[in-house]
């Protein structure tokens, strides 16, 4: 007897619960937008805003306040200091330290005065504001082009109404993931951009599987109502939708827990994206397909 997560004959009424799903998604998106407004916009990382990050590791217990005190009356006085692991901190400032002597004068000297040599500068990243603005533009283009590419591909392989459903689901996933990033008060870094693009490429997969089955079932039962066909198709593919997401979830979870602080933001965003993407493949994508169909039907009725 083989393992079965979902019993073969399952017949849950997904289509009947669509309005709850729409409400649920709307609430999630609104919470995300609320958080972004509350935080005064997304916090862009230095890749997009320009600025400097200095990662310092101490060989003894140090608090962020001690570092702040040490950096008093330097150019880093108003920098953001955040814990980044055990005795490890990120010092972040909007200033771009392109000048060679700035780092020595504003970080090394004050830290050495306060903590002797009990620290190590492990990473320095400096991005000029011009480059930052450039990256910002490229990030937006990358996300939009990814959506468009998916729209075109799915539209070509299936039908336009299917593709539209898939793409709206992807926009939905990206919106909720960005909301989650804001709620966690994380910086929007280039890692998160990579996560979003991964989500776009991955989340469409489940949608394709469902759409593929819908198309197959439409061919097999041309007389059946689309509502029923969609419901049957979702049920038939439910186990693989969940299983395929589960395996990816497991790997991202490992990445989140063991991959280290440098890529934790990437792992976090993909974790959120995979869960939301699975849900949206079932609900959002199919909702839009149905919506389109009903729109078409009512138009036809109107003509008669």
């Amino acid at each position, binding site marked *: 007897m083989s*393992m079965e997560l979902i019993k073969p004959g399952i017949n849950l009424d997904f289509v009947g619960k669509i309005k709850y799903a729409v409400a649920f998604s709307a609430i999630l998106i609104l919470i995300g937008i609320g958080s972004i407004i509350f935080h005064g916009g997304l916090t862009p990382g230095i890749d997009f805003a320009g600025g400097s990050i200095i990662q310092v590791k101490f060989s003894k217990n140090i608090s962020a306040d001690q570092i702040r005190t040490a950096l008093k009356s330097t150019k880093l006085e108003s920098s953001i200091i955040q814990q980044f692991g055990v005795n490890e901190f990120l010092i972040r400032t909007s200033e771009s330290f392109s000048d060679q002597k700035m780092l020595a004068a504003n970080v090394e000297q004050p830290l050495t005065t306060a903590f002797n040599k009990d620290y*190590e500068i492990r990473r320095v*990243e400096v991005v*000029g504001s011009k480059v930052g603005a450039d990256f910002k533009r490229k990030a937006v283009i990358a996300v939009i082009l990814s959506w468009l590419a998916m729209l075109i591909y799915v539209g070509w392989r299936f039908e336009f109404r299917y593709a539209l459903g898939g793409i709206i689901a992807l926009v939905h996933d990206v919106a909720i993931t960005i909301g989650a990033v804001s709620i966690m008060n994380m910086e929007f870094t280039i*890692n998160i951009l990579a996560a979003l693009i991964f989500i776009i490429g991955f989340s*469409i*997969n489940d949608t394709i599987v469902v759409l593929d089955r819908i198309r197959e079932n439409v061919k097999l039962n041309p007389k059946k109502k689309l509502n029923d066909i969609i419901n049957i198709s979702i049920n038939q593919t439910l186990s693989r939708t969940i299983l395929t997401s*589960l395996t990816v979830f497991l790997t991202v979870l*490992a990445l989140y827990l063991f991959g*280290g602080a440098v890529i934790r933001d990437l792992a976090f965003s993909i974790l959120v994206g995979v869960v939301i993407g699975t849900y949206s493949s079932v609900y959002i994508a199919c909702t839009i397909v149905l919506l389109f169909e009903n729109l078409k039907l009512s138009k036809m009725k109107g003509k008669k």
Partner: protein
Amino acid sequence: MFKSLKIRISITVIVCLAALYFLIPTFISDITSPWNQFLPKEKIHLGLDLQGGMHLVLEIDTDKALEAMMERTSNDLKESLMESKVRFRNVEKAKGATISLELTDAAGKTALEKVLKDSYPDLEIASSTPRDSGQFVTLKINDKRAVDLKKLTVEHSLETIRNRVDQFGVTEPEIIPEGDNRILIQLPGIKDPERAKNLIGKTALLEFKIVDEGNSLDEALRGNIPEGSIIAYGTREDKSSGQKGRVPYLLKNKTLLTGASLETAKVQISDRFGEPHVSIKFNAQGAADFDRITNENVRKRLAIVLDGVVHSAPVIQERISGGQAQITGNFTMDESRDLAIVLRAGALPAPVNILEERTVGPSLGSDSIRQGIMATIIGTILVVLFMIFYYRFSGAVADLAVIINIFLILAVLAIFHATLTLPGIAGMLLTVGVAVDANILIFERIREELRTGKTIRLALDTGYNRAFITIIDTHITGIVAAVFLIIFGTGPIKGFAVTTIIGLSASLFTAIFVTRVIFDYVTWNFNIKKLSI
């Protein structure tokens, strides 16, 4: 596709062995001869985020190079106009890369045009307006030539920076032009990033100028700078208090000699104080010029100016014929060594700005490798266990395919000298999760077919065939998205896209082809009543 099982098994085995072959240098570091001559040389190249090092993006200020050129040209033009007896006044470099001058009589413009045509083919008249009895003229470089000059400036800068980095002694540096006027520099394993940055970014324009002793320095400091002179500063350290101060000098504007006339530069330790200084030797032309200059200016002071800072201004005691000179000025050993390098490599034709800098220390790099490998192993084990738990024997087949996939990704990275970064490791791990999805799609379909009562062989056939096109779809979408990340991403994050693309492509082979070979082998050779799936 290939019907013959034997051929398919051979393909699988050959691909696996080839992958392992290309990975030998990565996994086994010391292979003694004579064996190593049969093996590939290339290890997997680790990104700077994993091995530590510095990533710099420089912008070459090509406009400044044009302006400097126009500054020199304006001086030459003055002389040419005098020689040609054109009446003019106020030739000077104006805003941007232009020269402005006033022609004082009506025939001036034709005469100027002739001078330009004969001696300055790069210049053209941008505008001319009548003024008094003559004309006010603005000159500019013609557009095509300006583009060429900018290009040349970038090439020259690239060359100079390459020279400097080579002499500094970095293993496997990467110096690549990016866009119109940017240079990407990757320096693995740099210990002192500040020093490296200083060495690369220094313009290192060495100039020799005569100190203007005919005019009053105090008067000049009050704002009355005499025509043809400039104020420059040097630093002086008070030996007793250790305090540094600025010392002003009034210099003749005309540069008599530059670092371009150097043959070589090296560090020497002075006999008296044991302080390092840089000793320079001029090339033949430079030595002759230096001989003439010192001869003409005996008893005057000669200022040695580096990037606008006066390093010393010794009195010329007598004519110097050997073509040798020294640059002194409170250098540490490292500073004088670096100065010698930049002087040997030559000056940058234009100032550079650092647009982007990312430095990762070696300890963070090795932490990242450790954590990345740890996450990959744990994540892979989770997926492997889940697949065996859920699909039993079939799950194990999919697991084998996924493990082959990991080796294929690494082998392709090694073969194409691609760089493995921390996000790259993350991409590899995610690919593990996505690659088994193809098998899940196949297996679920097979289960469905089996439930309808089909035979194992038929269920396998239908399962693979039906799932095939869906798997192609899902892989293509993943690859397309990753391509956008390569196009628009930067630095280590591109590694994420690279491993994802390789992994997804490899998964088409491992998850579809390899697993099918195993299933066919098992079902054709053993009389299986029930498929463990």
